[in-house]
């Protein structure tokens, strides 16, 4: 057991650093620093640069376009990209449907979709939740009825992140109404330009348009776009939920977040001293850092420990719970740190409003981010559902 990087790892770390320094788009960096709302092209800019380098899907098997990196190299890569504040790649293609397709898909599905996910040609969204099916996902009611070689899909999905940009969506639909809940579900890939699909925005607390309602009315979907067997979609869904341990905890990004909060607390004054010298605030930062260290080493034990290569397991629920709690505490501390200037509200740029927002730059997004990040303990299986998973799968209760 050791936490040393080998000379090869150190060389790799240097290579990643140099690559980011030389290739990260200046314009995107500027927008991030200003806290501007990002457009589709912004999200894709870094994706496409990494794709060209062959680094866009480190976790994928080499045969499908992965990098073949060791767990240590993957760890280094995620550390370095977070340290440099690189934008997070959209997970829906790369981390979610991609692994489902290369694990369960037909040769045709693999050949068509995987290269387009890698290149960023297709933007994906996830059609899981419904108005009546949140934590109880398996109670979903969107139906797919066979019609010749197609299905006819009807229903409503909600909380569909970034569906406004999506070319494709992966959907859980009911193909057998009489079967036990989990046993009548299928996993469909649906072209978002299909007739009958309507995407309506849902505006969240911070004023962002991230999530949507997706309505499906008599949408015709070829059966060849079903992944895995009919009525076996739940298998894909479960696989997807537990997949991609790397990054689920968000350790590297949270480390960067701690540094940002510290920088704010060094600037903000509390009496005649920087806020960071306030004993109570300092204690909260220290406790957060320590908890983050515990999360980091829990993730490292799971990545580079005895179970390496065994595939993700229910311990990823622990990483999700603790990781999301820490993300929320970070945004809360940031909002607390900026004081009065958490209050002024800006819709963002690009609406003909060139006026610079009021207050220090670091304060502009503090409140919207705090409000927005309440989502992390709710999405991807709420933290209460994650506890149910651990209770059942790990503790055997």
């Amino acid at each position, binding site marked *: *057991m*050791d*936490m*040393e*990087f080998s000379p090869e*790892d150190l060389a790799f770390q240097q290579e990643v650093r140099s690559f980011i320094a030389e290739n990260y788009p200046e314009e995107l960096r500027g927008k991030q620093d200003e806290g501007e709302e990002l457009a589709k092209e912004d999200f894709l800019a870094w994706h496409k640069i990494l794709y060209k380098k062959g680094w866009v899907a480190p976790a994928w098997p080499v045969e499908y376009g992965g990098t073949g990196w060791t*767990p*240590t190299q993957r*760890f280094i890569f995620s550390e370095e990209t977070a340290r440099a504040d690189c934008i997070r790649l959209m997970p829906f293609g790369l981390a979610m449907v991609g692994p489902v397709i290369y694990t369960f898909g037909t040769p045709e599905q693999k050949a068509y979709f995987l290269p387009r996910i890698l290149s960023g040609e297709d933007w994906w969204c996830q059609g899981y939740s419904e108005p009546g099916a949140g934590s109880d996902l398996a109670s979903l009611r969107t139906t797919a009825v066979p019609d010749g070689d197609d299905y006819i899909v009807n229903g409503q999905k909600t909380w569909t992140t970034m569906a406004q940009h999506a070319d494709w969506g992966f959907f859980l639909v009911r193909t057998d109404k009489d079967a036990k809940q989990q046993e009548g579900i299928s996993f469909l890939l649906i072209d978002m330009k299909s007739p009958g699909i309507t995407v309506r925005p849902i505006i969240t607390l911070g004023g962002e348009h991230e999530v949507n309602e997706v309505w499906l009315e008599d949408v015709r979907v070829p059966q060849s776009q079903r992944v895995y067997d009919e009525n076996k979609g739940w298998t894909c869904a479960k696989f997807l939920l537990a997949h991609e341990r790397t990054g689920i905890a968000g350790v590297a990004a949270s480390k960067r977040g701690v540094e940002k909060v*510290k920088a704010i607390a*060094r600037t903000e004054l509390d009496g005649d001293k*920087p806020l*960071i*010298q306030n004993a109570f605030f*300092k*204690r909260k*930062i*220290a*406790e957060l*850092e*320590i*908890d983050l*260290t*515990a*999360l*980091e*080493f*829990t993730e*490292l*034990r799971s*990545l*580079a*420990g*005895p179970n*390496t290569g065994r595939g993700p397991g229910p*311990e990823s629920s*622990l990483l999700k*719970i*603790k990781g999301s709690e820490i993300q929320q505490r970070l945004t809360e501390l940031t909002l607390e740190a900026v004081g009065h200037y958490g209050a002024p509200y800006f819709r963002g740029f690009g609406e003909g409003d060139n006026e610079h927002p009021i207050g220090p730059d670091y304060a502009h997004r503090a409140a919207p981010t705090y409000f927005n990040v309440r989502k992390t303990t709710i999405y991807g299986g709420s933290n*209460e559902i994650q*506890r*149910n998973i*651990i*209770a059942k799968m*790990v*503790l*055997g*209760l």
Partner: protein
Amino acid sequence: MDFTYTETQDMIRDTLARFLGDTYDFETRQKFIASDEGRDPAIWTALAQDLGMLGAAFSEEHGGLGGGALENAIIMEELGKVLGIEPYLPTVVIAGGALKAVGGAQADKFIPEIIAGNVIVAFAYAEPQGRYDLANLRTSAKKDGEGYVLSGHKGVVYAAPWATHLLVTARTSGGQRDRDGVSLFLIDANLPGIVRRDYPTVDGSRASEIYFENVAIPADALLGGEGEGLALIEQVVDEATVAVCAEATGVMQKLHEGTLEYTQQRKQFGIPIAKFQVLQHRMVDMFMEVEQARSMTVMGTLKLDLPADERKAAVSAAKNKVARGANFVGQNAIQTHGGIGITQELAIGHYFKRATMIEGQFGSADYHMERYEALTLGE
């Protein structure tokens, strides 16, 4: 980067677990901690001579297995699982650690004796006024000819009633809280002028108040430089602190497992109480604390070799997290057991007692939080 154990390390763990499984069940332990001696000396002898366990963390030239802090952590975790009261911590981790650090003739003399099980060392460092400050010392060692004369009072010296030797911190110069002027001595426990008042501790061990009444000690009892001992003491106490974190991990694991088991047997409202979601989620929270304690123990252990300030920050982070976790897991184990948890009858309450003492051992969560802050946020 690698977070796996070697085959030898797995073997050490398995061998020790098997041995303790045979010799250290709860009832047997309760019997020998209630005896006059307060322990079963045959176990220490067996650990040394039959299992070679006391040599796991020492170099091969001294007759050990060539291990170090990781081996200490493995052994401490296994001892934690059985509420072991064996003086492994003061003898091997602390005295052994100090001897490894100073090397030379003293190491050559004592380490083989420790490995053979002939020497038990108690660590006499705490003083009634000193709280967790290792430099806050009234005990003095005054130069007298070639040797020293030791005077003062050391409190709550675990394992002292069993010790053949004492590892003593004392002031050779400077004011009561100065960093300079602190020295470390390894002395015979039975020298004239050493007065002990022995007593049991709440967590099943034995300890003593020790009064040094002008005890003459030889020059070669000094470990390291005279008046320059604090850095060495801080280092071995950090090593001991992560070892205690490892023990805590074992204790917490058993508290958690015991709770899982009990809630599946205990029925209320006609069903096992483990079926209640409120208890399931609490047991998940306990599980997460156990896992994080394990992670922090690994983190602290792997960072022991870093430069002093980084090492101290890492150890304090570990101890803070483990102390908070031990508190949470211990209290919730008792709460979940209900009335039976606060009796002497089940092992669970005894694990709770040890977990509670570990919280404060070598510094409470607050003490370590403050040390962490001073090192990482002290601007």
